[in-house]
């Protein structure tokens, strides 16, 4: 087990040793369920798929993922354990990767616990389970993207509230960048930016997955997005670790 996995294992156990895990999972499941069945009109649509569920998950992650990441580095700073962790024989990128993997696995657990919805549609009708699987993969990638972004922000500040608000704001930028309101506005005023906005939009990329399409370009997008912010996290940590 490499040092990164040792960190990931400790972190993941840490979520379940504190109320963080239970509060996160319960709130996520309740909101996902409520939104799917009320606003999503799960029954009224008369279609056996999880489209309403998938349309809400990225917006839930927009608020819930920064709540996970705000403490990643800020908490280490507050406790002083960052000094312990980074003086163990571990490269900084391994510590960054370990924390990210633990948070990502945790989001995966939360997503997996929405399985009753999947069972429900399979009882009520005959959904295309391939499309549903692709949707889950997409959700996991969106979570990964927001986690990487939030973790990098957390490395920049000692203050957890600042880390949370900044992470939500930045995630929102990437979520909203592809929405019609933004792109139409930009097309009229600054056509160059409209192209960029569409290219970096997390929600635009996610739409493909909910239709059952796992495109290579989308996978590359999420991999680069996560890679870039993990790199930024390592750099930020290097410069701000002792502050």
């Amino acid at each position, binding site marked *: *087990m490499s*040092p990164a996995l040792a960190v990931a294992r400790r972190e993941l156990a840490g979520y379940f040793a*504190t109320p963080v895990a239970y509060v996160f999972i319960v709130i996520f499941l309740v909101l996902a369920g409520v939104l799917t069945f009320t606003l999503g009109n799960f029954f009224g649509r008369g279609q056996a798929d999880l489209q309403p569920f998938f349309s809400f998950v990225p917006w839930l992650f927009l608020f819930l993922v920064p709540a996970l990441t705000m403490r990643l580095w800020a908490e280490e700073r507050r406790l002083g354990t960052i000094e312990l962790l980074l003086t163990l024989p571990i490269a900084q990128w391994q510590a960054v990767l370990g924390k990210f993997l633990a948070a990502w696995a945790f989001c995966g657990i939360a997503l997996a616990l929405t399985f009753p919805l999947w069972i429900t549609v399979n009882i009520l009708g005959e959904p295309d389970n391939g499309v549903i699987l692709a949707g889950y993969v997409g959700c996991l990638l969106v979570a990964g993207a927001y986690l990487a972004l939030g973790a990098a922000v957390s490395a920049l500040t000692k203050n957890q509230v600042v880390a949370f608000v900044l992470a939500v704001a930045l995630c929102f930028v990437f979520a909203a960048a592809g929405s019609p309101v933004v792109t139409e506005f930009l097309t009229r005023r600054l056509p160059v930016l409209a192209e960029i906005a569409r290219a970096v939009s997390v929600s635009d990329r996610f739409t493909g997955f909910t239709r059952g399409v796992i495109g290579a370009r989308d996978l590359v997008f999420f991999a680069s997005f996560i890679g870039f912010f993990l790199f930024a996290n390592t750099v930020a940590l290097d410069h701000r670790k002792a502050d």
Partner: protein
Amino acid sequence: MAALIEIERLTKRFGSFTAVDDVSFAVDRGEVLGFLGPNGAGKSTTMRMLAGFMPPTSGTARIGGADVVARPVAAKRSLGFLPEGAPTYPEMTVTGFLAFTGRIRGFRGSELADRVAHAMQLTQLDGVRLQPIETLSKGFKRRVGLAQALLHDPPVLVLDEPTDGLDPNQKHEVRSLIRQMAPEKAIVISTHILEEVDAVCTRAIIIARGRVVVDAPPAVLEREGQSLEEVFRSLTLGTPAREAA
């Protein structure tokens, strides 16, 4: 062979404030260096740079010949470090925490279990092995930090105030532990308890306003009928220092 700890012209500036100013020293196997100085003199900053946590503004630090900036992982492998305040993860149990640091250091399976058990025995933590660290008293927390630094039996130990918060019996235990390990290791301890220097150190460095003002064995500092406390006061309060070394 080069000394286990080599610090050369180490300097750290925060903006216009110079916290550590041109500090050089070397510590070899068998030496216990007492690092003394008033609060804010630069003790912890020097130790953080030596442990590779804080990058120096200029100068170098090497542990076992490995530069802490250029080869950080190699340098940290030979180092046991107790940071200031002995930080630990509060929700973990003592065993869980020590196993975590052991896993990062590459120990597995029965070797890991043996190392953890041995470190707990050295620091007398057996009675609290399954307690969450947050429920322990200050003295126990300090010893958990110490156990973590001793786990891999490193050639170099850097301990920032190892006896802070311990009761007199525990202080005595930690000091005898340090004395017992001394012949095999290069040890640096920072403290502002002067009797500790007499008790365990083979050499003392007094640092004031970021500079080394004295580097000598405690016995030499105390000659001419002055107590260590008088020497410390005269050197760190800025009054003209008598020839001490």
